[in-house]
């Protein structure tokens, strides 16, 4: 379905991002998967997909650093000539109640989760405008809609992505570029495995479907939004959360 297309997926070698990379590559796209510190998992992800015959390259760079974003974008454009899809997926948590949260905790999460999407988008936007086509999907979170105890920074960054996406969707509406968000609920990745076991059981209790989602269940929503035929969908937020806090 995506033969000849090039996708850039930030944080694309682990967790949800790896599932997105896998699905898009399986559909025939070349996927440039970003990572920051996980060199080993990046190598494993690339090797695994290469052995399946998929076309994947990995690119080191921090999304919270505008210079890194520009460099990675250039690397991908130089090697593959184009970028059709940008998936801003890289994200982190640093959970603490506001009373205990330091200014640095706040700043770091916003820098990666929200400013990271801005920097990476900036680095590719002129290219997409020039070609008159593009698809941008930002991975937000149910927490951006509901808030959560201990996640003021994370919730603010993810709610911020809604405002960013909708504004950009309006700015790009007549340029063939759509911008949408996918808002996952609790998905079984390392990010969620970091939650203490007792707390995780409480979380699952609260999910109407009583289970965590799988990364693949998020990836297929991303793929849907990236299709050419999704051109009438822009500025939307597609939730995939098992019925949690709808």
């Amino acid at each position, binding site marked *: 379905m995506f033969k000849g297309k090039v996708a850039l997926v930030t944080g694309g070698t682990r967790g949800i991002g790896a599932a997105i990379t896998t699905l898009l590559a399986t559909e025939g796209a070349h996927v440039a998967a970003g990572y920051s510190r996980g060199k080993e998992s990046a190598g494993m992800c690339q090797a695994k997909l290469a052995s399946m015959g998929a076309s994947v390259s990995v690119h080191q760079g921090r999304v919270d650093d505008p210079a890194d974003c520009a460099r990675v974008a250039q690397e991908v454009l130089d090697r593959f000539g184009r970028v059709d899809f940008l998936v801003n997926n890289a994200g982190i948590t640093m959970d603490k109640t506001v009373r205990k949260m330091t200014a640095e905790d706040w700043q770091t999460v916003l820098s990666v989760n929200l400013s990271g999407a801005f920097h990476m988008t900036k680095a590719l936007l002129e290219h997409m405008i020039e070609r008159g086509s593009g698809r941008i999907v930002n991975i937000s979170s149910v927490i951006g809609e509901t808030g959560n105890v201990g996640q003021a920074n994370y919730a603010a960054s993810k709610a911020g992505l809604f405002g960013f996406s*909708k504004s950009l*969707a*309006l700015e790009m*509406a*007549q340029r063939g570029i759509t911008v949408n968000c996918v808002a996952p*609920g609790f998905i079984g990745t390392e990010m969620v495995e970091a939650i203490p076991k007792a707390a995780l059981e409480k979380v699952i209790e609260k999910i*109407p*479907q*009583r289970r965590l*989602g*799988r990364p693949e*269940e998020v990836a*297929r*929503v991303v793929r*849907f939004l990236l299709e050419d*035929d999704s*051109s*009438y*969908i*822009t*500025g*939307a*937020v*597609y*939730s*995939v*959360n*098992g*019925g949690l806090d*709808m």
Partner: protein
Amino acid sequence: MNTLSNGIAGRVCIVTGGARGIGGAISTRLANDGAIVAVIGLPADRDRTESLRASLNGSAENVVFYEGDVGEYERCTKAIEAILQEHGRIDCLVNNAGITADHTARKMTIDEWNAVLQVNLSGPFFMIKAVLDAMVAQNYGRIVNISSVVGLSGNVGQANYAAAKAGLIGLTKTIALEVATKGVTCNAVAPGFIATEMVAAMPPAAIERAVASTPVQRLGQPSEIARTVRFLLDEEAGYINGAVFNVNGGWYM
């Protein structure tokens, strides 16, 4: 049952008002993907279903018409009984049938208010009520309700329609919660302005305004709604529940 390899083939799907417009596009898409489509519609929809079947290459026999008015509960249960008898199961329900009766609230009659609520809101409830036991018993079901951007934004002259479509979102989320552990999902798709007879009935100046106020500067096509419905009906869409998927060219965010 046929192979379910593509997530919908062999599934028995009901599409209310599935003979023309958005519903027609949904029926077409599902039939082409190998689903068995039961169209429920008014008497006038019988011939329309025939024309729709005629337009399908090879999958015409996948589409069957059942007469029924979704605004009448007994008619809904009758149609469902007939479908269950014929096909043995019901996997998907798309509540698409809808009407408009536009007037500003000052001019709107009580009949206009009631009629639109009856078809657009009570209709989906009646249909869901009629299929839900069967879905829960088989531990599988996919329900998609066609709401509207107007249910989120409101619209001058559409107090009845907007109330019904907003109400439909409340219904969607409640059903989603009630059957979340039973293998059944319930979601809504909220289209923007789509090129069908419903929109063609608007005054030309109003259509022009709708296009001009849509960020992507065009009406949507019925097929663009159909593919979103199809996506949500897929077997693999099981973790999407209680969601509202907008397809509106940026008209409302």
